[in-house]
């Protein structure tokens, strides 16, 4: 990153530096994709967990809740071992690519989304149970109806997952390799610049990262407000 040497982050934003925007863009692509992927798996799973009764259900809930605290670097290491050419999924050839980063982050945040979804849906089910049972709503229709009605609470769940993924560096560093111009994202850039002693730049980039995360949250909140007013 010779271009970044000696320049402050603000100067970079101001001048519309292409490399910086590429890094921000990649960060958003990876984390947003991971959030969507994790939601696609975690939300139905959480909803089903909320609605089903089976032996060992409580143990599974404890496990999912506990998995919210999975250390990113451990997730990164496990995914690395899976995707390495010498590993079981080596044929895919996606180690050290953005795809691997998306997968690792999705695995990291799926428990958060599942656990919070379970709680939201369980609370909602207490309110909706009689009404939906009387209307003969079962199975997938029931799960989807509850998820849709819970959508405003679930947006917060998504933001929680997004935030966790956007902030982590361990997983993307190990499975992405921090390759310049290819798998380098904001958090790994900050780590790199810090290790090079470029502290002012690292802090500047940190502020950019926080601003980006806040912007995503603000957009989501605005979308929620709009939806509430128009769709109810």
């Amino acid at each position, binding site marked *: *990153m*010779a271009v970044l*040497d000696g320049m402050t982050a603000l100067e970079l934003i101001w001048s519309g530096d292409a490399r910086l925007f590429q890094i921000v863009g990649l960060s958003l*692509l990876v984390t*947003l*994709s991971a959030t*969507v*992927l994790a939601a*696609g798996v975690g939300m139905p799973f959480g909803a089903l967990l909320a609605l089903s009764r089976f032996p060992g259900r409580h143990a599974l809930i404890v496990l999912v809740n506990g998995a919210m605290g999975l250390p990113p670097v451990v997730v990164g290491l496990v995914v690395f071992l899976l995707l*390495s*050419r*010498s*590993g079981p999924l*080596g*044929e*895919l*050839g*996606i*180690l*050290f*690519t953005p*795809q691997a980063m*998306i*997968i690792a982050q999705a695995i990291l945040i799926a428990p958060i989304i599942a656990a919070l979804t379970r709680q939201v849906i369980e609370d909602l089910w207490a309110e909706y149970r009689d009404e939906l049972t009387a209307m003969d709503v079962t199975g997938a229709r029931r799960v*989807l109806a509850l998820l*849709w009605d819970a959508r405003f609470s679930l947006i917060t769940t998504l933001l929680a997952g997004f935030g966790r993924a956007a902030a982590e560096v361990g997983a993307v560093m190990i499975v992405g*390799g*921090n*390759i*310049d111009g*290819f798998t380098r994202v904001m958090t790994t850039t900050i780590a790199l610049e*810090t*290790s*090079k*002693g*470029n*502290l002012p730049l690292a802090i500047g980039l940190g502020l950019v990262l926080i601003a980006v995360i806040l912007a995503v949250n603000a957009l989501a909140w605005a979308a929620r407000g709009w939806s509430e007013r128009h769709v109810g």
Partner: protein
Amino acid sequence: MGLRLRQLIVLLLFSQLAPALPAAAEEKAIVVASTTSTQDSGLFNFILPMFKAKTGIDVRVIAQGTGQALDTGRRGDADVVFVHAKPQEEKFVADGFGVKRFAVMYNDFVLIGPKSDPAKIKGGNDVVAALQAISKTEAPFVSRGDKSGTHAAELALWKQANLDPANTKPAWYREIGQGMGAALNTAGAMGAYVLSDRGTWISFKNKGDLAIVVEGDRRLFNQYGVILVNPAKHPNVKKDLGQAFIDWLVSGEGQEAIRAYKIDGQQLFFPNAGEG
């Protein structure tokens, strides 16, 4: 809006995850496992665009410690390894993981220390004597402790000084298990001595009151080698593209590019293909 739009979005994003395998096979790109010190020196940012302009090949550098870089090569996750630890490189080839080792360039290590210089070694050109003085005065010393090439060089120098702090673990010897930049940061914060490669030192932005205390000793020279990962062990290795990179590095053009790289007007790497 509901279901259909959401399904479409999910589908679009899933398509991003489709294994890149077919594309990767045609993509003109290779993965090179190298070291953090080489990456941090800025050499790659200088020479790789030249290589790309000439051949159209994208070089993706993963910067790790030497130990990890060689391991990446062993696993077949890189096409080429480019590190600076000759004994480990030769073993890599001997064990069948690499095809052939080519010498590329050398740079040197420097001993860095605080302004206060508790071991009183500043200005010397005998690194072994300096290390003995550090041990005798029990001045703090930061070691990378991460199986990197720099770490290996450091351990070799302690051995030449007839000392073994990595195993006796005295209190003044601090192993941090991280890269060169982190080691320099730590040494600066602790007022400790540390062995660094010159390239990282020159580009390091947080020097504080650290400075070079010993340099120029022949024992501080650091040889780089490049090796193609053995396609017999890992058929996925892009051997033609990888070999093209190696050929360029040792060619007149590549060697000249290495020579031309300077920081603050100083040349960092000395090309010596065919020699080391």
